[in-house]
C-alpha cells in the first residue's frame, strides 16, 4: 500500500466517525497543524467523547500515533515527534457541562477557550484563576495538559488545586472519568493529578470540572523596584513573612519589563511612573492586593516606602496583569528566536536560579528576561538573542546545560519553547525528581502501544 492510499483510507475512516466536514488529509490544512515541522497525516475534529473514543479505537487497533491539540498555543513544547498520524483537535468539544453560579463550580468541554469560560462566569463575579497567555486561543484542555499557570497561582494554587474532576478517553478508546463535580471528593484515585501536566501522553481529556472563586471587588497593585535581585528577594521574604495575603506576588526582571510593556497599553494617560515598563534597570516586585480601602491602607503601611511610592488601580492595573500573563507569548512576538524555560524550585532557590539564568544568558549572547511567581517558586525564564543573526544551536544548548547544572536535585527546568534547530540537540524536559520507573509503568498501563504523543514526553 502506498502512503497516499493509506492516508486516503485514514481520512475516510475519520470522516466516517466525525463527519466529512471534520476530517481532512488536505495538505493545505494539515500543514498548518505541523508540530515541529512534522505534518500530521490527517486531522480530525470529533464532536463528542464517543467520537473521540471511536477515533482512538481506530488508531489503537492500527498503532497510529495521535496528537491531541487545542488552540496550538503550547504545541511547541516537547520532543520532536517521530510522526503524527492523527491530529485530534478538540475544537468542537465546547459544551458547558454544568454551571450553577450558586455552587461556584463549572464543568466544560476541553475545546472551550479560557476566554470563553471567563465570559461565562464573569457576569457572576466569579473567576477561574488560570490567567494564561492568549486566552482567546488557549483551551481548557491545553491548559490541563501543560499544567499552565499565571500570576494568580500565588493565592489560588495551580490547576491541580482547583480542577476537581475530569472526563477522558483512554488510548484504547475507553470513555472514563475521575473526580467529581463538587469541591471536595476523595472517592477513587485522583486521576486529575495524573492527567494534569501529562502533555497528552496518558489519555485524551474531553471535559473537566473546576472550583471557581469570587472576583475581588477591588484590587490594587503595589510596584516595588530594586537595583539588585537580592534586594527584591529580601522584599519578597518581607511580604511572605508579613500578615499580608496578596493575590499575586510576581517578579519582573529588568529585561522582562520591556517585553511586558510591549503588550501593555495604559488606558489613562497619566498612570505614568506606576506602569510596568519601559525597559528598566530594576527588578520589580508586583504585589497585587484585594480588599477595601482600609485593607489597602494596611498594605501601604506594611509594604513600606519601597512599594507605597508607586501603585496602580482600575483598568490599567488589570491591563498590566494581562500583559504580565502574556509574557511567554510576547517574548516570541518580539524575538522569534527566543527560548523559554519553565523553572520550578523551592522558594530559596529562586534567586540562585535567576542568577544562574543571567549568567547563562551573558555567556551565550542572550538577554535573560524572567517573570515568575516568586512566592511559590514558579518562574518563566526567557532567553532572547542579542545579535540580529540567529544564534547557533550550541548557544542554546550551552545556556540550558549551564542552567540545569545549577538546578537543585528536586527542581525542574523545562524548555517550553526554542528554535527547532536547537531542539535537536537536547532533551527539552531535563531531569525530574519523580521516579522514572514508576512513570514508565503508568504510561505502559495507560498507553501500552505508545500512540499518544509518541516521542514527545520525558521518556
Amino acid at each position, binding site marked *: 500500500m502506498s502512503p497516499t492510499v493509506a492516508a486516503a483510507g485514514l481520512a475516510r475512516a475519520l470522516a466516517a466517525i466525525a463527519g466529512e466536514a471534520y476530517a481532512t488529509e488536505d495538505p493545505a490544512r494539515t500543514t498548518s497543524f505541523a508540530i515541529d515541522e512534522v505534518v500530521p497525516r490527517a486531522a480530525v475534529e470529533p464532536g463528542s467523547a464517543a467520537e473521540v473514543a471511536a477515533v482512538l479505537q481506530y488508531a489503537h487497533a492500527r498503532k497510529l500515533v495521535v496528537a491531541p491539540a487545542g488552540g496550538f498555543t503550547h504545541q511547541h513544547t516537547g520532543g520532536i515527534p517521530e510522526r503524527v498520524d492523527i491530529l485530534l483537535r478538540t475544537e468542537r468539544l465546547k459544551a458547558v457541562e454544568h454551571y450553577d453560579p450558586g455552587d461556584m463550580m463549572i464543568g466544560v468541554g476541553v475545546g472551550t477557550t479560557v476566554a470563553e469560560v471567563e465570559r461565562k462566569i464573569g457576569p457572576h463575579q466569579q473567576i477561574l484563576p488560570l490567567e494564561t497567555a492568549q486566552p482567546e486561543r488557549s483551551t481548557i484542555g491545553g491548559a490541563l495538559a501543560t499544567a499552565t499557570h499565571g500570576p494568580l497561582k500565588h493565592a489560588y494554587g495551580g490547576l*491541580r488545586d482547583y480542577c476537581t474532576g475530569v472526563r477522558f478517553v483512554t488510548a484504547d478508546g475507553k470513555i472514563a472519568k475521575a473526580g467529581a463535580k*463538587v469541591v471536595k471528593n*476523595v*472517592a477513587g484515585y485522583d486521576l486529575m493529578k495524573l492527567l494534569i501536566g501529562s502533555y497528552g501522553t496518558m489519555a485524551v481529556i474531553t471535559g473537566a470540572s473546576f472550583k471557581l472563586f469570587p472576583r475581588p471587588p477591588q484590587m490594587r497593585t503595589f510596584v516595588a523596584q530594586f537595583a539588585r535581585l537580592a534586594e527584591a528577594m529580601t522584599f519578597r521574604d518581607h511580604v511572605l513573612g508579613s500578615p499580608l495575603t496578596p493575590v499575586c506576588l510576581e517578579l519582573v526582571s529588568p529585561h522582562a519589563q520591556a517585553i511586558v510593556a510591549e503588550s501593555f497599553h495604559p488606558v489613562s494617560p497619566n498612570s505614568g511612573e506606576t506602569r510596568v515598563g519601559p525597559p528598566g534597570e530594576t527588578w520589580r516586585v508586583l504585589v497585587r492586593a484585594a480588599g477595601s480601602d482600609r485593607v489597602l491602607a494596611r498594605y501601604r503601611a506594611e509594604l513600606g516606602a519601597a512599594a507605597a511610592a508607586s501603585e496602580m488601580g482600575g483598568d490599567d492595573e488589570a491591563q498590566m496583569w494581562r500583559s504580565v500573563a502574556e509574557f511567554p507569548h510576547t517574548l516570541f512576538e518580539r524575538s522569534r528566536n527566543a527560548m523559554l524555560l519553565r523553572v520550578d524550585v523551592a522558594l*530559596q532557590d529562586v534567586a540562585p536560579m535567576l542568577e544562574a539564568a543571567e549568567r547563562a544568558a551573558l555567556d551565550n549572547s542572550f538577554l535573560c528576561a524572567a517573570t515568575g511567581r516568586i512566592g511559590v517558586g514558579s518562574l518563566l525564564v526567557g532567553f532572547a538573542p542579542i545579535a540580529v543573526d540567529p544564534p547557533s544551536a550550541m548557544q542554546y544548548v550551552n545556556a540550558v546545560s549551564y542552567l540545569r547544572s545549577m538546578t537543585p536535585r528536586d527542581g525542574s527546568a523545562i524548555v517550553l519553547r526554542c528554535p527547532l534547530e536547537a531542539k535537536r540537540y537536547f532533551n527539552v524536559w531535563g531531569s525530574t525528581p519523580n521516579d522514572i520507573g514508576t512513570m514508565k509503568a503508568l504510561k505502559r498501563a495507560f498507553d501500552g502501544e505508545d500512540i499518544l504523543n509518541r516521542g514527545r514526553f520525558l521518556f
Partner: protein
Amino acid sequence: MPRSRISEELREIAGAEAVLDGAEDLMLYEYDAGLSTGTPQWVVFPETTKQVSRIAQLASRMNVPLVPRGAGTGLSGGSIPRAGGIVLVFSRMTKILEIDAANRRAVVQPGVVNADLSAVVARHGLFFAPDPASQKASTIGGNVAENSGGPHTLAHGVTVNHITGLEVVLPDGGVVQMGGKAADSCGYDLTGLFVGTEGTVGIVTAITVKLTKVAEAVETLLAIFHTIDDAANAVASITAGGITPVALEMLDGKTLRCVEEATHAGYPMDSGAVLLIELEGLREAVTEQAEAVRAVCERHNAREMRRAANEQERQLLWKGRKTAFAALGRLAPAYYTQDGVVPRSHIAKVLRYIETVAQKCNLQIGNIFHAGDGNMHPCILFDMRDPDQVKRTHEAGRMILTYCVDCGGTITGEHGVGMEKNELMPLLFSEDDLEVMKWVHDAFNPKSVLNPQKLFPTPRSCRETNVAGGIGGSR
C-alpha cells in the same frame, strides 16, 4: 512457609521487640475509628525505610497481605487487615526530619502526629493546614493515605494541596522518590496521584509538607437559626456572596442539644440549627468579612449572632464542634458517620431528605458537617447488638449516599472509601472508570499484596466470601 517462620523473619528485620503475633496483642489492631474489623496475624513496628522495604519484600515473596496503619483513627477501614496478614504500624517512625521554614516546608516520617507538627513549627509562625477532627492523634502518613480534610479545608484545601514530595516503598520493596520541596516538577504528578490512594499502591516513608503562615487575625462567629432551612440558605449565600470563611460548619438542633449537654459550650438548646463560622486573615479584612457574614445571616432570619471575644471562647465553640460525634454517641451504643458531598445549593434539600430517611428507617440521625464545602456528615445512631438496626443503618447510609450522588455529589469528601464504601463505588463510577483506576493500582501493586480488598468493589465472583465488609462488622 509456616507462620512462625514469618514471625522469625519479621523479628530479624525489625527487632524482636518490634513484632507482635500473640492473639491478645493482635486484637488491639483489628479495628479503627469506624466500624469495620479484621484481625492481623502479625503487627510490626519498623523504624527505618530500609526495614519497611524488607518487610514489603517479605510480604510479596510470601504473598501475605501487608496493611499500613497510622494511629487507627480512620473512618473507612483503610488500615484494617481485611484479609489478615501483616499490619505495619508507624509508631516508631515519628521523627520530624527537617524543618525548612525559609522554604515553608517540613520533611516528616509518616508516624508524626498531625497536631504535633503544627505545634513544633508554631515558633516560625507556621502550621500544617489539614486539620481532621482526629488531628491530636492521627498521623501525617495516615492523612496522606486518606487525603484527609477537616473544618478548615474550606479555605486551605485538603491534604493533597499541602504535600509536595514523598518517599514511597513499593510492594516489591523498591524505594522511589516523588517530587520534593518545589511546588511543581517535571514529569507526571506522582505525589498528587499517590495522596489519597488509601494504602493500596505504596507505603509512604517520608513526606515533604507545605507549611502555611498563621493568620494575623481570627474571628469566630456562632449564628443561631430557628430552622435548618434558614441556616442552609445562609451557607449558600455566604459562599456565593464572595465571602470566603476558612471554616463554615453546621450543627442541627438534635446534635446541638447533645453537644451542649456534654460540653457546656454555651450552644442554645432550642434552636433549629447553628452555623459556626470562622474568618482568618488580615485584621482589617476579617473585621469587614465578619460584618458581611452577620448581614447575610440576619437576612436569613438568624435569631442571634455570637462572637468569640477571646481565644478561650473560641476554643469552647470549637470544642463543641470537634467533640460533637462523641456527644451524639451518648445517645446510642454506636454511631455511623456518612461523608457524602453535595453542591452547596442543595444542602437544605439533602437535610430534609436525611430527615425522611431517619423516619423511614426508624433511626436517629444527627447532622454536623462542613457546610461550606457541602460535605455532609449525617451521624446515624444505632445499637450494633440489634441486627435489624444494623441492617436499617446500612440501608439509611446507602439511601443518603445515593441521594448525594443523584444531586451531583459524591460518596466521600474526606473519610475515604476503604472497605466501608467500596461496594458503593458503582454509584459514582462506571465499570470503565473503575477499570482505568485499576490500571493505576496494578501498575504499583499487581499482586494486591498491599491492602487488598479495599477501595474497589469486590469482583462479582468473590462477593459471597466478603459479606463481613461495610458497617456492622463483628465488633
